[in-house]
């Protein structure tokens, strides 16, 4: 796979977490560099040229969100944020500031590795292919056509745009704000309920069991994520 050998910078003050990540990620053929403080992380990001940064939001010397903001001033390197469960606001803030994904502590290694893969792939992916296949769901962007199990699904223009936007960022979590801004424009950023209603309608059309969706996954308090099992 193309992400093998990628360089990963870990910014976290907990040595145990760094050690554990280093062992696991090295075993998966990543090159690891560690930074125990925010300032160190900012320096290393410039020197080490990482392909991905894992950033803990709780750092001793500075706010993780500030580190994120400073990084985003000059680099588009994918950033995965580590946060604790209680701070949905931090997660949303980090994503809105340009983080690519978040993982909640405590986390399983499989989950983190999957996120790393998605983030690196997104970064290297150039243009979206015109036809995307995700299991039973196919979307043909050239013809604005969506099919489930070969049956064509009729979507409203907004539903189509929303689904397309989710699919383009497949695997990545999109916050409510990001989705609203992308589909309805800046004025709609506070109108969460639009999103809820449209997501429900799309699910009804593409999901077999809307209470156990396969494609559009709810990230509680944060947003939505399109999962492609392929």
């Amino acid at each position, binding site marked *: 796979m193309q992400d093998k050998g990628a360089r990963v910078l870990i910014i976290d003050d907990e040595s145990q977490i760094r050690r554990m990540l280093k062992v696991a990620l090295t075993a998966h053929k990543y090159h690891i560099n560690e930074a125990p403080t925010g300032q160190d992380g900012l320096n290393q990001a410039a020197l080490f040229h990482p392909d991905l940064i894992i950033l803990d939001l709780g750092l001793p010397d500075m706010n993780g969100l500030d580190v994120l903001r400073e990084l985003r001033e000059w680099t588009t390197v994918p950033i995965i944020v580590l946060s604790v*469960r*209680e701070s*949905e*606001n931090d997660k949303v803030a980090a994503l809105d500031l340009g983080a690519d994904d978040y993982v909640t502590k*405590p986390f399983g290694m499989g989950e983190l590795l999957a996120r790393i893969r998605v983030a690196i792939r997104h970064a290297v992916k150039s243009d979206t292919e015109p036809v995307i296949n995700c299991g039973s769901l196919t979307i043909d962007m050239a013809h*604005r056509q969506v099919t489930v199990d070969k049956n064509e699904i*009729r*979507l*409203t*223009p*907004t*539903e189509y745009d929303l689904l397309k936007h989710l699919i383009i960022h497949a695997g990545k979590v999109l916050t409510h704000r990001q989705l609203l801004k992308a589909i309805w424009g800046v004025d709609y950023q506070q*109108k*969460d*309920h*639009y999103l*809820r*209603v449209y*997501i*429900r*309608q799309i699910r009804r059309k593409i999901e077999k069991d*809307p*209470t*156990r*969706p396969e494609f559009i*996954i*709810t990230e*509680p*308090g944060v947003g939505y994520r399109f999962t492609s099992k392929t």
Partner: protein
Amino acid sequence: MYNQASEKILVCVGPSPFSAHVIRAGKKIADALQAEWFAVYVETQQFSSTDEKLYEQLDNNLRLAESLGAEITILYGKQIAHELLSFVERKNITQIVIGKPRHAKFSEIWKGSLVDNIVRGSNGISVHLLPGESTPYKTKISNPFRKQHRLLPYLFTVLLVVFTTLLNMLTGFDHVNIALLFLLPVLISAAYWGRGPSILASVLSVLSFDIFFIPPVLSITVEDLKYLLSFAIFLLVAVMTGTMANRLRAQASVSKRREARTAALYALSRKIVVETDIEGILNTVINVIAETIDAETTILLPDNLGILKPMAYSSCNPKEFGINDEIASWAFEHGKSAGCGTNTGEKENCLYIPLKTEEKNIGVLVLKSYHPPLRLSTEQNRLLEAFANLTAIAVFSLQLSAEAQQARNLIQSEKLRTALFNSISHELRTPLASIMGAVTSLLEEGDLYTPSERNTLLQTINEGALRMNRLVKNLIDMARLESGMMKLKSEWCDIQEIIEVTLRKLNSVLRDRKIEISLPENMPLINVDFVLIEQVITNLIDNAHKYSSPESKIDIIVKTTPDNITFLIKNLGNPISEENRKRIFDKFYRLDSNRHITGTGLGLSICKGIIEAHGGEIWAEGKNNKVIFAFSLPFNQSPPNISLESEGE
């Protein structure tokens, strides 16, 4: 401060001007000995100060004593000596100062004088006798109106006797009846005008009887010397009846005053009893005082730092009251009245009366008259003191009960803490034990195990870690709920999505468990905190799974009405008793029948906290082997309208 092993001096005060000398002498002795001293007046029935003038004199004497630093006490009783001596015993008085009148009273001949009685009963206590001066008991009265006023009764008495004489002449009764009729003016004058007029009436009646009815008529001489005896008896009877009527009158007036005081106190206590908080009590007291005494009132109570703060006041703003903080705290600390009319801060406008109980001083009652200077009669002073005592007791008992409540709460929280401690230590150690056991096995002799055994050990570690994670999450939620840090982040949510997230999260726990979901069509959005409600549903489904057999199915049913949405989770299981249905939502409450299943007893109480924070309700039901946990949330606002577009382009 007074000498501790000290002398205590008692000064007997009476309504005579001479008493002032006794008081001053007492003060000198007290000063010389650095002793605490008491000025005591005993109000008896035969010696009650019925006379306005005497009353005023007594008032002045008591005031003088108070201003010289004595503690004023007024005792009630039949025998002055007896009351005084029992007071002496109560207070451990070491010396008595008393004035001895120059003139002996007639009664003292057989009763013994007050002084004699005291000396006899003093049991080794030093008694200082001050010889009385020949100052007349009643000083000259300069007020001409009052003089006239005092002569009027005599005039009426004379008229009464004249009238009776005329009546007797007209009716022509025999001597016995005439004598009886002559008792009438004696009784009337005794009852209405006191001893003097009654004696006058007696003498006049005898004379009139002698002159007009006893032969020889119109002459003071009598034929039969037997009549002299009759006169003597008549005079004796008249004087005695007069004295008794007079005494009755005095008693009536004393009891009237006492009754007024008792009534006022009773009224106050009745009003205070109804009050449940200190503020209420203080306001009631202020109102009652305002009704009784023409003065502005404030009550100062110490705050947490012990600084006196006005807690209640009558109409006047306490800032304009001109309270002297120093004097107020002096009165508070020393438990003695201060301010105007006392010897501490005499020039102040306000009077500071401490609110005292046996145990401690509660606060200070401050009075300021509308028209300075504030001058209160002894009677008013006594009433105020009684009010102050009553207030102090009421406030104190309320404070005590508040403290008791606090203590009870403390015990309660102590119990909770113990429960928490036990629960957490158990719940944390169990998974830790399995994790450590498995890890050390792998670390120390990992080669011994087959890959499948190693996998089992790793699974154990994983499960233990997940369990600890759940516990920590519960504890954090509980702490956030309790500390009030849990802020609702309400947004428009789709219940279906919440269920989706819940089921996904519980996937590893539920595995292949059969779950049936029934949702109404077109469920409206609801404005709640997504993450918290998800937490509630997660806990409820997790419980349903834990407490029922793995083969049975779990039903999730959502119903909506225009007003609310109800969420029911049903599973097969032992029905919960009526009593436990409420308690099951209490912190750390776990059913004994479920002891074998791991749990902290926190999950349901967290659910309750979250649902109540949303203004909803949560409850448990159970019938026919089914256990239902349900909650409902109100639709506080209707979801905003969205104009939907049509499909296709």
